[in-house]
């Protein structure tokens, strides 16, 4: 087991790759009461085209299968994993993103048993036609609920503009139509292709003894049979690299009280997985903070002119294979909002130079928030993104952040902000 000490933060991370390929990482927090563990599979909603294990041909599975699988993993022939955690006094949950599926628990007692339950339910699939059919009702309700949520529609609206031909524009849960096609055998096939130990990692934070804990996990794994690890062949390529398919503008009418607007930028530079990807992310975040957060002159101008209010926010998302930023607000001045945001983006270089004196302060603010996250077992464990950021964890992030210079930020502007990647989506109140 390897040990990495971060003396500046009084934290130590232990990691070990087990014989079957499962990566285990642990951060003990001795004065904490709970333990949080998250088991992540490197498989998400965009991984819909792949060579099934044991086959040679690519196939495309129905949209929403990763999320469907996540739901169905809990249910077994004669019990439900939820109940097992419940009996052990633990909370459990799961979530699916574009590129990952995660299963987690948080408990303050019976940690050994809870870890066993977590590993066992994710490593022992049971699907039947009957339970698959029943789940369609539950997930259908979930999709309906999100359909009624204007913020969700706004988010997927801009994704539909930025990636009209790529799977990111489809709801992670799929559509009612796509999930109706899912069969138990699809779930098994998908499961066996992606849920291999070497495509998974387990991150545990809390009141644990690392040596003892890793032994529990090794013992658990030693009792199971795993297939020989196989290479996973997925086909995920952006339809275009130059952004020529980006839809510049669309509007949706919905039953909302105020118009909503989102400006999106699709990153067109190809970012290779590794620590440089993390550096790229922080560099863009620093750029966006300097241009748009409440310390910027522009923010105050837009706020005082009633173009934005406290509903304004922006975010940068980087995932395996793609990255984008978005800016959104509830505003009666939708067009002014999008024009102003685009103008700032187009003049980013000049704006950055004007905001130079703020740069160190912005960096310090991000640093403060990173250190603050170290108090949260969930934040520490959930932020781990595997290969995407070269296997760095939250504690490593600090060094990467600190290495970024003002010149790095200037250099990232033409890389990230390209007119071909910019798009706008509006939601306007329906005229009844």
């Amino acid at each position, binding site marked *: 087991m390897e040990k990495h000490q971060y003396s500046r933060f009084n934290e130590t991370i232990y990691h070990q790759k087990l014989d079957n390929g499962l990566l285990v990482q642990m951060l003990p927090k001795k004065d904490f009461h*709970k333990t949080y563990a998250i088991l992540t599979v490197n498989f998400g909603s965009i991984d819909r085209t792949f060579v099934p294990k044991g086959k040679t041909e690519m196939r495309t599975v129905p949209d929403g299968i990763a999320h469907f699988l996540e739901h169905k993993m809990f249910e077994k022939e004669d019990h439900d994993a939820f109940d097992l955690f419940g009996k052990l006094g633990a909370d459990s949950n799961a979530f699916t993103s574009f590129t990952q599926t995660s299963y987690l628990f948080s408990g303050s007692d019976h940690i050994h048993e809870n870890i066993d339950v977590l590993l066992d339910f994710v490593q022992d699939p049971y699907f039947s036609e009957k339970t698959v059919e029943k789940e369609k009702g539950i997930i259908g309700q979930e999709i309906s609920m999100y359909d009624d949520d204007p913020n969700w529609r706004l988010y997927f609206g801009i994704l539909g503009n930025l990636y009209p031909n790529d799977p990111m524009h489809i709801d992670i849960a799929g559509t009612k139509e796509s999930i109706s096609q899912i069969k138990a055998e699809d779930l098994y096939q998908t499961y066996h292709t992606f849920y291999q130990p070497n495509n998974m990692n387990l991150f545990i934070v809390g009141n644990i003894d690392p040596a003892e804990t890793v032994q529990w996990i090794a013992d658990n794994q030693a009792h199971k049979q795993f297939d020989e690890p196989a290479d996973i062949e997925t086909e995920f390529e952006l339809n275009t690299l130059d952004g020529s398919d980006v839809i510049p503008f669309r509007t949706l009418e919905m039953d909302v009280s105020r118009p909503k607007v989102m400006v999106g930028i699709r990153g067109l530079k190809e970012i290779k997985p590794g620590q440089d990807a993390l550096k790229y992310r922080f560099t863009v975040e620093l750029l966006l903070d300097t241009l748009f957060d409440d310390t910027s002159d522009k*923010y105050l101008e837009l706020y005082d002119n009633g173009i934005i209010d406290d509903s304004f926010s922006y975010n940068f998302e980087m995932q395996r294979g793609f990255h984008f930023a978005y800016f959104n607000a509830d505003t009666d001045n939708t067009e002014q909002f999008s024009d102003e945001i685009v103008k700032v983006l187009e003049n980013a270089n000049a704006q950055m130079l004007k905001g130079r004196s703020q740069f160190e302060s912005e960096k310090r603010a991000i640093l403060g928030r990173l250190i603050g996250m170290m108090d*949260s077992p969930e934040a520490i464990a959930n932020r781990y993104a595997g290969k995407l950021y070269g296997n760095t964890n939250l504690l490593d992030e600090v060094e990467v952040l600190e290495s970024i210079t003002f010149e790095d930020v200037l250099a990232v502007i033409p890389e990230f902000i390209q007119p071909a990647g910019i798009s706008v989506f509006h939601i306007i109140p329906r005229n009844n």
Partner: protein
Amino acid sequence: MHFNLTNGVDLNIIKTTQFKTNQIIVNFSTPQTKNNITARSLMADILETSTKKYHTQTLLARHEADLFGMYLGTSASRIGNLHNVKFRASFLNDQYSQPGLLHEVIKLVGEMILNPLIDNGSFDEPTFMTQKTNLASSIASLADDKQYYASSELRKIYFDQDSPMQIPSFGQIDDLSVLTATNLVDQYQAMINQDKINIVLLGDVDEENAAAAFRELNFSPRIVKNVSAFYRQELHEVFEKEEQQELKQAKLNLAYQLPVYFQESNHYSAVVMNGILGGTPLSKLFVNVREKESLAYYANSNFNAFNGVLTIQTGIESQNKDKAIKLIKQQVEAIVAGDFSEELLQEVKDGLTHQLLSGLDSSSNGAERSLMNDIFDNDKSVETIVNEINNVTIDDVVKTAKLLKLQAVYFLNGEVK
């Protein structure tokens, strides 16, 4: 450790080395009236925006960024009959930032509370106008969140029509028009000089030093009236309301009176009962309404020990309304009949225990919990509460469930006829 800064102003410093961040909460509480809720909410928004020294949002935000991206914000909230304006700061411990950060933060919190942008008896007019507009729009936008909307409509039919409970803790649009940049100063003065003030500081700090820094803020002494925080109302007939909107998922919400209050002997029986009914994934509502019948995407219950209300909320298909109501009522009846296992009881207790213990692992949660205890002069430790929860029997749960009286049913129909 408690410090009495002056009459009616309590400072509670909880020293712990568990966290890298520290928390400060300064809470102003006063009995709610129909006239003070919206005013105080708007005032909280204005106070958060700027101060005399940092007279624009930008200057204030830059100072916060300099202080390692500290968070400082205000909020309006309700605990039963009490209306609260809360100033909350979250920031790094000196050890992980720079020596003296704590003092800088306390100074800034004090600046925001005691040195607002008021000139000649008036809040800064442009700031006032902007925040008034923004509060109105954010209240209007809430209607777009259908879960929130359904719960607020339920509240309107549950609570007595002339009760301040009709008004959300953040205010209502109709009350904004009478507020001006000058009459809001009266509300501010009343809050600063008359409200009960509870301050909590949680973190790895030197207690005497920190207390001295808070003393320098010089709060004025005040006489705090002893008013019960617990809201009670008479039973009424069951009120039902149905509305139509173009939605894919309908919402069905129910409210029961449950006259059990914080610190009463059956408080934790009610908490456990709520856990069995709909407070956990093992609960009757979750298992029978969501899982077994696939009737709902969410089905849960909430118990408020300051208002004496238990609410149930579900998201369903429109045509399943009657079936869902029937099933929900069956779950309540089952608990009244004692139809739940010793095993489920224990699981709910273990889940609640875990929730309480894991709350100890969050500095903001710890600060909030201490604030609540300070407001109610409660000194029960988490260990004591865990014991009380574990002492709840099946019989206690049944007895508490018998107190449930259905009072309101709200249905937001997704089908447009």
